[in-house]
């Protein structure tokens, strides 16, 4: 299996690994995800109905408001939070949410994660070093 290492910046510390889930729209943890179930609910998303729980959630950036970090925190408390988050650009509401939820988050990778990573890839996010290691599931 092919393994790719990408360097980026750390937004929130910790190490986690899991299966990649990609969404291509800006994401609000409060408006686009059910905080008690971890299911994507935004009607315009083609990933509506998918669970973010324990996934490595990859999306371009956050579109959060004042209360958005609370949504991330509630997801974590409900046991439905993603294992880690990867963004192209970091919105401060997502960064705040990841930190108060003790969830690793990395952004500004040397390559666009939405192009390098595919759904189902195994991804390790090292929020201490700001590194992402992708193990491709296709041979």
């Amino acid at each position, binding site marked *: 299996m092919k393994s790719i290492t990408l360097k980026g910046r750390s*937004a929130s510390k910790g190490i986690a690994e899991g299966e990649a889930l990609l969404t291509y729209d800006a994401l609000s943890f409060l408006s686009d995800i059910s905080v008690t179930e971890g299911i994507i609910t935004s009607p315009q998303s083609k990933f509506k109905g998918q669970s973010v729980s324990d996934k490595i959630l990859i999306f371009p950036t956050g579109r959060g408001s*004042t*209360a*958005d*970090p*609370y949504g991330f925190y*509630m997801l974590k408390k409900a046991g439905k939070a993603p294992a880690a988050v990867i963004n192209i650009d970091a919105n*401060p509401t997502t960064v705040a949410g990841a930190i*108060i939820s003790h969830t690793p988050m990395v952004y500004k990778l040397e390559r666009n994660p939405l192009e390098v990573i595919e759904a189902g890839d195994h991804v390790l996010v090292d929020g201490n070093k700001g590194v992402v290691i992708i193990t491709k599931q296709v041979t």
Partner: protein
Amino acid sequence: MKLTADEERMLAGESGPGVQRALELLIAIGEAYEAEKLIDISSSHILSPEMQFWNTGQLSRWARELVAESVEGATHFRVPVTINPIFLEPAIAERLGYPESYIEEMSQSLASGRETYARLGVIPTYTCCPFYIHPLRQGEHSGGAESLVVLFNNSVLGVRVNRESGPTALATALTGKTPLYGMHLPENRHGQALVELKDDLDPGAFTYADYNALSYGVGKMVVDKIPIFLGLPPNMSITQLKYLCAPLGVSAGIPMFHAVGITPEAPTVEVALGGKKPETTIEVGRKEIDQAFAELCSATDSSIDYVFLGCPHVTITEMDEIARLLQGKRVKSDVLLIIGTTEPLRLLARQMGLVDIIENSGGMVVSGMCSAGSFLRRGVPQGFHVGVVATNAAKAAHYLKAGGVQVWFGTMPQCINAAVTGKWGDA
């Protein structure tokens, strides 16, 4: 990021784990924005998730846990701190006939929250308009959340403040610091989109609802560009200005606008633009204002159950206007008329006899709660029906409509008339 000795001590945990986490959070936000350092702020404005957003149930308990974790070991806020409204007063919940168990749980959550913030020395404003009580000066750096406060501070007072989130606002209050980025840097404060008013508008004769509609409509057009309003009356009142600020906070994501001749940093359009060319020019006329009015209404039923004025919290001027409109009239028995403000202004209005006039007509003056934005949106118990709401506030109407509530948006006299007749549109 370069840290001062004071910041290093906080980061090492010398002021307790809450302050330590707060500083870590601000550093991470600063790094995301490539801020070179943290700066000292002179004040902050916080909101309380357990009192404003989640009042009952599991989510409320989690919100309380988060706050307890965030303030662990902290003894006092580092700067003067004001606070946003709560969700719903238990007295209003009773009047609405909410279940007793719900009111009891909500009251416990409120008591716990009030105690937590009082212990840290909060100025208990419980308002979205802390500038009525603790105004700031041009050039002061502030921290905090609540889009209205951020817009008013930057655009009307010339204060420097970013649109932060709830947790980072609390972190700025606990540390007295915020990262140096965004609105704290003069080069980011210039206007980008010119907003010209067409000849078919007479801004001198604008009602509060017109200012709301203008703000709401322009927000949808500029999205993320800082607008520069041309042609607004230079003698606009604080009441009019708060209505120009608030809707922009929900229809756009911007932290600031310029109004030429009003905003301290916009004596002329050239200064507001910072010597650059505008990125775009928007024209607003009667058609655009009418369209905003229409967009803000979702109701089909003309029978009114609930009339709300005070988003943002009413000024003494408005309290006087409402009392004059109500004098000698009676609110229809099955309509709830609520006027929302902050406690010091309610006390003043009571001294002036205005609260008596409103109460004798059957209306209620409540302080410290976010009737429209918070409780009608999230706080209504499952299966409970608030009914049809009338308001002169675009921000409230926006949230109500988004929450599936039937809402009428119109002028203050239209709203008072609806409270008296129980019908919309008889004005």
